[in-house]
């Protein structure tokens, strides 16, 4: 069985048919070619497949594509070119918070959701939100440093208002 869905994906209107049992991760990667969401643990633990749905991070590996109906989806591809990406990627690069890069799109998206939740404040809140995203290079310190660096910065305050 399939369902016709209408959604906003990376700022663009999408209308199309998806199989009821199709996972969001496969829909993004295989149907739309948005490969920034990575396939890894497949059991909602590692966070590599994180995308934002209505601003909230979800594991696209265990989320039905047909549940996107009426929702706003953002993947790393959609973030590129926005002020959020500029601030976040800048901080990640400055702190060397990227090693192999496999987990990075998901890290950046989860970090973006912190603006929305107004959680980009103290290290405790940031840790709590980010601890569901695993980095097998164990680059956690650099990632936390990058996020704490921008927590109090002027662009962050402005972006918080926009989120």
């Amino acid at each position: 069985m399939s369902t016709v869905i209408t959604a906003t994906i990376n700022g663009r209107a999408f209308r199309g048919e998806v199989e009821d049992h199709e996972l969001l991760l496969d829909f993004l990667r295989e149907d739309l070619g948005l490969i920034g969401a990575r396939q890894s643990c497949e059991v909602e633990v590692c966070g590599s497949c994180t995308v934002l749905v209505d601003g909230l991070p979800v594991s696209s590996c265990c989320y039905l594509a047909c549940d996107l109906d009426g929702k706003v989806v953002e993947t790393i591809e959609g973030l590129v070119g926005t002020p959020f990406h500029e601030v976040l990627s800048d901080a990640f690069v400055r702190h060397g918070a990227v090693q192999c890069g496999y987990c990075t799109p998901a890290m950046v998206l989860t970090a973006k959701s912190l603006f929305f939740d107004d959680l980009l404040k103290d290290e405790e809140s940031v840790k709590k939100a980010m601890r569901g995203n695993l980095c097998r290079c164990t680059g956690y310190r650099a990632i936390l440093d990058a996020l704490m660096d921008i927590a109090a910065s002027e662009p962050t305050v402005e972006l918080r208002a926009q989120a």
Partner: protein
Amino acid sequence: MKLPPFEVHRPSSLHNASRLLRDMGSEAVPINGGTELLLAMKLGLAQYAHLVDLKRIPELRGVRRVGSGLAVGAGMTHRELESSRSIAEAVAEMPRMLAEIANVRVRSVGTIGGNLCFADPHSDPATFLSAIEATLVLGDGSTSRRVPVDEFFLGAYETKLEPGELLVEVTVPAVPTGTGAAHVRMKVHERPTVTVAAKVMVERDTIVRARLVVGSVCGTPVLPQAIDKLIGAPRAAWSERVREVAALSAAAVAPVADAEGSSRYKQALVEVFVRRALDAALSNAQGMTR
């Protein structure tokens, strides 16, 4: 990993959802966030030809005040409840318990009702809600009944829900002044290895009521009888009685050995965590911060 094919149905009322489930019998299963069900289906542990999506049913949404307590819609996500002011006011420990479930992504879509109905033995909400004496409202759109949380679970992944019956809301009583609730747990992976929740009522430095629930170690949450030893304890005896209750509770539970550890290891954890939960509940009862 792909999911096997199925059809998703999207009823907009409790009545229709219930009818669909009843008509399709064992071929159908209700789904909300799907954080546990889809996982089980992906791993081939469960198979259904029909999924009845409960996300469009208004009766399952919202948090209402009922007397001093709350009626929490079963379809509310962990995240929604974690940030709910009315929940924080009625039961201060509850947002903290919810904030520790799995990870931020699971909390974005996973629901309180889904967690309870899936009846995974490793559950913080099941343990905590049982300790604070929450009640579940089960219904099908025309009739309903109430079941205390601790009577809802029949075994691992098994509940009292009848065919076509759905969990509608969770009635959460407020924790009044003089009563302390606490929830402590340890986790190595996403699911808790051990969860202990307690509620104690103190009057004039004497414990007058006490409730203890040990979760995540057996098929269902268990309520050790040993907790009765706290009743009537004057303040001077608290520390000693708490230790006694912890040792007796650990001896009384028969934990299931799994990837989280052996039965003996979990018994040792139970003793430590019962002690911590009771200490925390007692200090919360006196309005002290931990």
